């Protein structure tokens, strides 16, 4: 899964830092070298990446909830196992990403606490509900499809640990995307009821998925810095267009209708979509999506109810270390 808001780099603060180091740093970026955890980096680069990677991690973890909603109701044992494995993969992505973020100097606990306190964002897409089984197919097809569009360029991100994490994540996402599409193919070859379920899911998810790429380029701020640092390689609108162009033929193959009557194909072959409702996007980011409160409540509940378990594990580890020290001293 994925977080948007890639284009929110911190203001470049190199003026305040060692100009020589900053120039060297930029030269390494320009030469497509990877920046590693122990290398010097501008404070704003560190801060931007910490935020981006941790938001990405939070998105993976919150993203487990809408799909997890169907694990206990998957329609066949094969689908149940595949969905459970998929949601487990998302958790794994969250773990690698927290680990990647930790290489920049913040602990997983701090980052998670910021999310639970509502101070850190996660992708807006997970604030929409999964109402039918077709939503599981649609999420795999479109949400993971959009994630792949966003994340493939991140495999070449200038920060080494993030880039490497993305390589593995992208492999798994691409598997998820095919799995989701295969659910859609099955539904669209099925009964009228199943086909209607697939169309209904596409109708509900299409616009929120387009919003995943973030605000239009005309209104984005700070994109330049992220681009200069080679954290971001394509603009929001470029990625969104690439996604739409790849997806329209897939919908046609399924016999489904994209819920955008104004969509047209231009001379260059690009599918031009209608105006996106950015008011909805802003409202969802502000906490007013259909499921924001439920998602946060579920994460806080898991965190709070698990506190005694984490405390027990820590207490046991401390006792064990103490015993080992005592034994060694004997």
């Amino acid at each position, binding site marked *: 899964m994925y977080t948007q808001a890639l284009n929110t780099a911190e203001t470049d603060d190199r003026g305040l830092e060692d100009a020589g180091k900053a120039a060297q740093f930029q030269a390494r970026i320009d030469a497509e070298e990877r920046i590693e955890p122990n290398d010097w980096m501008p404070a704003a680069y560190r801060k931007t990446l910490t935020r981006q990677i941790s938001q990405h991690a939070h998105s993976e973890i919150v993203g487990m909830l809408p799909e997890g909603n169907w694990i206990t*109701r998957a329609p066949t*044992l094969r689908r*149940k196992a595949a969905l459970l*494995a998929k*949601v*487990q993969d998302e958790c*794994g992505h969250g773990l690698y990403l927290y680990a990647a973020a930790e290489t920049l100097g913040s602990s997983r606990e701090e980052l998670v606490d910021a999310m639970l306190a509502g101070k850190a964002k996660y992708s807006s897409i997970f604030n929409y509900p999964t109402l039918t089984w077709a939503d599981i197919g649609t999420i795999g097809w479109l949400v993971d499809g959009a994630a792949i569009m966003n994340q493939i360029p991140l495999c070449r991100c200038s920060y080494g640990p993030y880039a490497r994490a993305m390589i593995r994540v992208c492999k798994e996402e691409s598997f998820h995307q095919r799995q989701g599409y295969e659910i859609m193919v099955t539904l669209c070859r*099925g009964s009228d009821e199943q086909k209607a379920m697939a169309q209904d899911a596409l109708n509900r998810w299409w616009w929120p998925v387009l919003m995943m790429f973030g605000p239009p380029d005309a209104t984005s701020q700070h994109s330049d810095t992220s681009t200069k640092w080679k954290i971001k390689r394509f603009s929001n609108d470029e990625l969104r267009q690439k996604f739409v162009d790849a997806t329209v033929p897939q919908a046609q193959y399924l016999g489904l209708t994209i819920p955008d009557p104004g969509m047209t194909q231009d001379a260059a072959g690009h599918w031009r979509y209608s105006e996106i409702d950015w008011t909805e996007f802003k409202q969802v980011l502000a906490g007013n999506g259909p499921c924001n409160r439920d998602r946060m409540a579920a994460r806080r509940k898991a965190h709070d109810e698990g506190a*005694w378990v984490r405390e*027990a594990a820590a207490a046991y580890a401390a006792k064990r270390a103490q015993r080992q020290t005592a034994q060694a001293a004997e």
Partner: protein
Amino acid sequence: MAAANIQVSETPLVLYALRRADDALILGHRLSEWCGHAPMLEEDMALSNIALDLIGQARELYSYAAKAEGRDNDEDKLAYLRDVRQYRNLLLVEQPNGDFAQTLVRQLFYSAFADLYWRAMMTSRDATLAAIAAKSEKESAYHLRHASEWIIRLGDGTDESHARAQAAIDQLWAFTGEMFVVDDGERALIHAGIAIDPGTLRGRWLTTLSDVVKEATLTLPQNDWMQQGGRAGRHSEHLGHLLSELQSMQRTFPGQTW
């Protein structure tokens, strides 16, 4: 129009496979309920992993039951179109997750048994069951290690975790006896070398368990009254709710391909 229950011809071999399949599915389903809600991400991963192993075992056992029955049932019909009275799992595995201690105690009780059971079943004269046993034994060994390590951490962790772990042991103990009981049909399979007698494993099961519980500074109950009925379809109230969720799609949209 809801989908009706299927009928299953429960020959001793079919029933044998169904019982083990139901154990694995119901416990796998219970564990899958944790996914996204566990106390730490590592446990979301681990509990999902164990659930996946168990669902995998269930699928093989259902397929074998369907083949042994030789009618037109398959893994999904067996899982999704039998009602609570037709389910044959142990009462232990349908018990609710409760808190993390209850989930892990349930797992310890079951995995300590399953590990021994599948290892012994590797010598079954039935080649399919021996193959399923060989795979399941490897998985159960890991499940047992995971559960044992957690029970030791919880028992010897904080006062709260100790109390919760002890309460879970006390709560679930009465459901362990059923694992070792066989009926006449199963006894015939044991005589034929197809199944093994679980009663012969009880001593070793208790030793494994006692070692873990002792290291965890916990105790096993003295109470030896055991609940039974799951193998014959007499379940706790919990199973019906689990099945209504598990089966909701197949019951609502009968006969469709997913």
